[in-house]
């Protein structure tokens, strides 16, 4: 991931900034230019609710080269309390504790080391509440 691309995503990865449609109220994460629900193009920036529940999950045993050495790790789809859904790693978890419907909370973590320079890339991960 080259630097401009990483930098551009910082509001989402560090601060969970989303776009709330001014017409229908749907929250899009990441923000979009067109509301997928009503096609409106007017948004206000909001911060996501950082708590929610696990809709599904898996344990990645074979990863791409970027994540070599970090397997096995858990990944899930989380539905936050404001209705937004996202894909995230689930950190600090004993895999036996994972189950659908579990309450989780998003925390700030290192996600990967990028490319030859080994640049640390950060973002959100879920932890069990």
């Amino acid at each position: 991931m080259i630097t401009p691309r990483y930098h551009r995503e910082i509001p989402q990865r560090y601060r969970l900034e989303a776009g709330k449609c001014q017409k229908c109220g749907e929250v899009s994460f990441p923000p979009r230019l067109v509301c997928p629900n009503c096609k409106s193009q007017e948004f206000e920036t909001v911060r996501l609710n950082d708590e929610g529940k696990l809709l599904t999950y898996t344990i990645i045993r074979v990863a791409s080269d970027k994540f070599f050495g970090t397997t096995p790790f858990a990944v899930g789809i989380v539905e936050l309390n404001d209705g937004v859904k996202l894909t995230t790693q689930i950190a600090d978890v004993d895999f036996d504790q994972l189950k659908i419907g579990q309450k989780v909370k998003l925390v700030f973590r290192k996600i990967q080391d990028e490319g030859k320079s080994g640049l640390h890339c950060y973002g959100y991960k879920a932890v069990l509440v």
Partner: protein
Amino acid sequence: MRDVAVIGVGMTQFGELWGKSIKDIFVEAALKAIKSAGVDHIDSMYVGSMSSGLFVGQEHLGAVLVDYLGQNPIPATRVESACASGGAAFRAAYFEVASGASEIVLAGGVEKMTDGADVTDALATAADQEYEVYQGVTFPGLYAMIANAHMHQYKTTREQLAAIAVKNHANGANNPNAQFRNLVTLEQVMSSTLVADPLRLLDCSPVSDGGAAVILCSMDIAKKFTDTIVKVKGTAQASDTIALHSRKSLTTLNSVVSAAQKVYKMADVTPKDINFAEVHDCFTIAEAVVYEDLGFCEKGCGGPAAEEGRTAIEGKTPINTSGGLKSKGHPVGASGIAQIIELYEQLTGQAGKRQVKNAHIGLAQNMGGTGASCVINILEAV
């Protein structure tokens, strides 16, 4: 639009073809298709390829392949819709003939996956790079999350998913072009290495090299070339959110539901009229979900259907008689065309030990990513 026929097909062996380049593989399949159709020229061609750029560092694939096929200066275009690239190339060729713009068009697909690229990373580009892949999720991981949700919602069992792999290997054993012609048992599937829980190695389609091509022409001239005419009865394509997490349901693929509605309408058929189908079983769970979303059974019955033998060659609706992506192999861009080839062979009675009795109408369902794109074609023996 006028009626379109498929009059010839050709494919390479699917597998680890270390001695052959992407050019060799495509040209071999295309020459076989041209010879099979008995045409002396083609007016145009479309090639499906998911990621020749990442797999072999080659873009501009239409130009590369038409050159090596010795067909300059006809137009040649690469079509990309991830794993549905082959199906999308077939649709493009169909429209070019149906519109009357061309008489004879080649639709092909090719992928060369064993030249040393990071295959897991390349395949993951079919998902949302920033909001799925960044987190470390892989394609097996995404389908594993669908599997977990499906097992939770519909009580689908591990054994039912394994039954899909067992059936597809049994079919592929009788396909001379299949990558894996060995039988596997339920126990072998369920004890194979975990890739992304609950999916194991034998739930996953393999990494493959391979090419496939078919020749389409107008119905008006098809009779000049062959007596065994296969008509394109319907074609449809649909889209869904790129990220799996954005969907209302994690266990229904809306692009499949939507494309199925459209293609059944165009072909004027219902699921009951389909005698057999090739579906996109990149993972065992995908076959179960697609079987449901095509309307072959109620939601949640995709697992039991395989377990009870309803999708076997002698069952009510045979699914993946070719061996599917699972056993035949999944050279991504070629898979959609190889599905059409299986339909052609079944509809013309050339499927040998895999032959389905009374095969008049067949369906091919090809999808990209976790179903963000889906192409469905229906072919009929006339």
